[in-house]
């Protein structure tokens, strides 16, 4: 475990360094408060620190105060080293944000025991952070496929639509639904159905760019948000996604299964400023059309022309077909 020693006294630094190295710590030693703050910053910084009370540049308690102001980094367990014994000092030191203090010259066994206390606290923090990350993952991801869950993918879509309007670019929405999925479940059981869903999720993720979003919208429905998508390439990309499902059968416990997906495709630039829910209902209609049109295909959602949108468009143009 890494540990920082900040002490302007070379003798004390050497003694601490050797004692702690021998105890198995990876020691980083600096000689003033500014250097201590620098050494405690960054992603790989030590999380244990022994800070001398009186140091040039910045005394130990000021270093503690400075470090405690940070919110975005992991906890640093800080022990102040003091050679004074007055009560006020200790109270002020602990109130500056130090976790503990040690009177110099220290006893090596006591020092090591107090550092173990620090390690216990840091270990506790690690476990809490890990649990929080797990909870966060569970709260935002679909547990079967690990794709974004419905709530999150809708939030992401809303955000992307706002951004694409602001930046005047196109967001493409693909709503895909596996064809005859109920039959897979009914014939081979839900476990096989789950295997299919997991493999479909994997293929969808592989068929989009790292900054696109893929979510599980419902049972066998997937919502894919293609960010900053060129309108003329949207259909090609939706076709690629469709093909990623149907070109190879999916291996399951019940053998290789042929699976296809029907999709609705919608380009935000075709629809002006409309809320995400509206667009979802439009792309859902296109998906329905793809189903009735024979499945395993992509149907583009186009707005029905209103009298205003017809102005200037000659009769018989692309829009009216």
């Amino acid at each position, binding site marked *: 475990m890494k540990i920082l020693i900040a002490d*302007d*006294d*070379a*003798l*004390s630094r*050497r*003694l601490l360094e*050797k*004692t702690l190295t*021998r105890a198995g710590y990876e020691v980083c030693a600096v000689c003033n408060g500014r250097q201590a703050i620098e050494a405690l910053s960054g992603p790989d910084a030590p999380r244990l620190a022994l800070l001398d009370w*009186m140091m040039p540049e910045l005394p130990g308690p000021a270093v503690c105060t400075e470090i405690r102001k940070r919110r975005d980094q992991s906890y640093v367990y800080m022990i102040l080293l003091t*050679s004074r014994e007055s009560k006020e000092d200790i109270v002020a030191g602990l109130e500056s944000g130090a976790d503990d203090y040690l009177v*110099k*010259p220290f006893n*090596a066994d006591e020092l090591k025991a107090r550092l173990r206390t620090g390690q216990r606290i840091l270990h506790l923090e690690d476990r809490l952070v890990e649990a929080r990350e797990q909870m966060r993952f569970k709260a935002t991801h679909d547990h079967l496929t690990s794709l974004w869950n419905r709530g999150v993918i809708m939030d992401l879509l809303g955000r992307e639509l706002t951004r694409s309007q602001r930046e005047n670019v196109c967001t493409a929405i693909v709503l895909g639904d596996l064809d005859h999925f109920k039959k897979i479940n009914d014939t081979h059981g839900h476990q096989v159905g789950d295997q299919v869903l997991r493999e479909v999720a994997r293929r969808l993720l592989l068929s989009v760019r790292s900054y696109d979003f893929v979510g599980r919208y419902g049972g066998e429905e997937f919502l894919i948000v293609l960010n900053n998508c060129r309108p003329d390439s949207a259909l090609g990309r939706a076709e690629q996604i469709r093909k990623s499902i149907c070109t190879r059968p999916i291996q399951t416990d019940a053998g290789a299964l042929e699976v296809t997906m029907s999709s609705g495709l919608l380009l935000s630039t075709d629809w002006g400023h409309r809320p995400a829910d509206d667009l979802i209902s439009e792309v859902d209609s296109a998906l329905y059309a793809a189903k009735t049109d024979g499945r395993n295909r992509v149907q583009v959602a186009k707005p029905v022309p209103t009298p205003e949108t017809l102005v200037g468009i000659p009769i018989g143009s692309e829009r009216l077909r």
Partner: protein
Amino acid sequence: MNPASTANINLAELLVRVDNDRDLLRDLLSIFKEEFPSYLRSLQQAVARTDAAEIARVSHALKGMFANLAASKAAASASSLEQLARSGETPSLKRAFAEFERDLHGLLPEIDAYLAEVHL
């Protein structure tokens, strides 16, 4: 020369502190020997111009070094000099510094003797 007879340094305590590591003991004594003269010079100059803040700072640093070397008499002497400087009793600083220098008498030869011993 038998260093124990002068007993400025509590060798037993110092050996526990370095965990019987002779290399570390030699390092500590060398660091002290190297750094002490400039500390003492700063202190002498600060006393000459009655700079209480500087006297407090330097004697505090020396107190820490002496304490680490288990030189308790010297540490106590540096500590009282520090306290005096902090309390602002400037008139007695010169006398206290003289006492401090007297208390240090014998410490340096003792450190040299130990250094010679650990170098063997």
